[in-house]
C-alpha cells in the first residue's frame, strides 16, 4: 500500500533540491587550486617588458591578484573599487592583463588610473590557463606563503569585499600573527 506514496516522496525530495539550487550559480566553476601554491610563472611587465612579474613577487606578504582586460565590461565596472583599495589598503593588488593589446591596456590605465603594484602581460593566456582562469574579471587572494586561498569570479563589489575578502585577509593576518608568536 505504501509503495503508492513513493513517487510523491521522490518529488518532494526533488523539489527540495531544486529550491536549494535556485540560489546557486550553475555556471560558476570553482577552482581546484584553492589551498595550492601559486603556479610558477614569469610574465613580462605591461609597461616595461623587461621588468618581470613572477610568482616570487607573491611570496612574503598577503596580496590580491586581479585578472583584467580592456575587452571586459565587468573590469571597467570594478575599476574604481580597485583604485580605492590600492590607495587605502596595505594589501597590494597585482594584475594579469589577459588576451589584450599592450597599447590599449596602457592607455586605459593611464586614463582611469593604475591600481596595480605590478602587472603581468599575458596575451596568449598561457599563465592564465595554469591558474585555471576562464574569464575576466577574476580575483585571487594569495597568502604570505604564496598559496591561493580564495577566488572570486566576476566584478568585485563592496559587498564581496566586505563579506568575503576582508574577513579572509583578517583571518590570514591572524594566522601569521599566531605563527610569529609560536
Amino acid at each position, binding site marked *: 500500500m505504501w509503495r503508492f506514496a513513493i513517487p510523491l516522496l521522490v518529488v518532494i525530495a526533488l523539489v527540495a533540491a531544486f529550491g536549494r539550487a535556485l540560489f546557486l550559480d550553475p555556471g560558476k*566553476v570553482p577552482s581546484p*587550486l584553492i589551498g595550492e601554491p601559486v603556479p610558477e610563472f614569469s610574465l613580462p611587465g605591461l609597461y616595461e617588458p623587461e621588468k618581470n612579474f613572477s610568482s616570487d613577487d607573491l611570496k612574503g606578504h598577503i596580496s590580491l591578484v586581479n585578472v583584467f582586460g580592456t575587452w571586459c*565590461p565587468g573590469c571597467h*565596472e570594478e575599476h574604481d573599487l580597485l583604485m580605492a583599495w590600492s590607495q587605502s589598503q596595505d594589501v597590494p593588488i597585482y594584475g594579469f592583463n589577459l588576451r589584450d593589446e599592450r597599447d590599449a591596456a596602457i592607455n586605459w590605465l593611464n586614463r582611469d588610473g593604475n591600481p596595480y603594484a605590478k602587472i603581468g602581460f599575458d596575451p596568449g593566456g598561457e599563465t592564465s*590557463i595554469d591558474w585555471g582562469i576562464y574569464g575576466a574579471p577574476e580575483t585571487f587572494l594569495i597568502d604570505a606563503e604564496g598559496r591561493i586561498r580564495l577566488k572570486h569570479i566576476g566584478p568585485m563589489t563592496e559587498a564581496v569585499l566586505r563579506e568575503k575578502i576582508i574577513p579572509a585577509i583578517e583571518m590570514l593576518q591572524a594566522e601569521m600573527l599566531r605563527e610569529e608568536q609560536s
Partner: protein
Amino acid sequence: MRRVLVFLACLFFSAALFAAEMRFENPQQQARYENLINELRCLVCQNQTIADSNADLALDLRNKVAEQIAAGKTDAEIIEYLTARYGDFVLYRPPLQANTILLWSGPLLLLIAGGLLLFFTLRRRARLDDEPENPL
C-alpha cells in the same frame, strides 16, 4: 551583465578557426586530438565543446591539447592537466569517482530494478491467469 554578453556571444556559432583542423600528420594523433576536443567543455560558452566554441579560451585550450599530444602525453595525462586547473567541470564525460558512482551505475540499477519488477509481475500475472475466470 557579463553573463548576458557572454551568452549573446556564445549564442552565435561559427565553425571555429582550426577546430577539427588537420593538426597532425599521424592519423592516431589526429584522431586522439579530435576525440579529446569533442569531450572537453568550453568554460566560457558552457554549452559547447572546445571543438565547436569560438571563444578565445577554447582556441587556447585546443592549442594546449595539440601541444601536449605532440609532446607525447597520454590522454589521461592531458585530462589530468586540465582538471587540475579547472576541475571536473571541464569534462563532458564525467570521470568515474566517488561522487559519480551513482551517476554511472544509476541507469544499470534502474534497469535491474525494472527487470525485477517485470519478473515478479509476470510471475504473478501468470498465476492469475491459471485461476478459473469469473464469467461476467
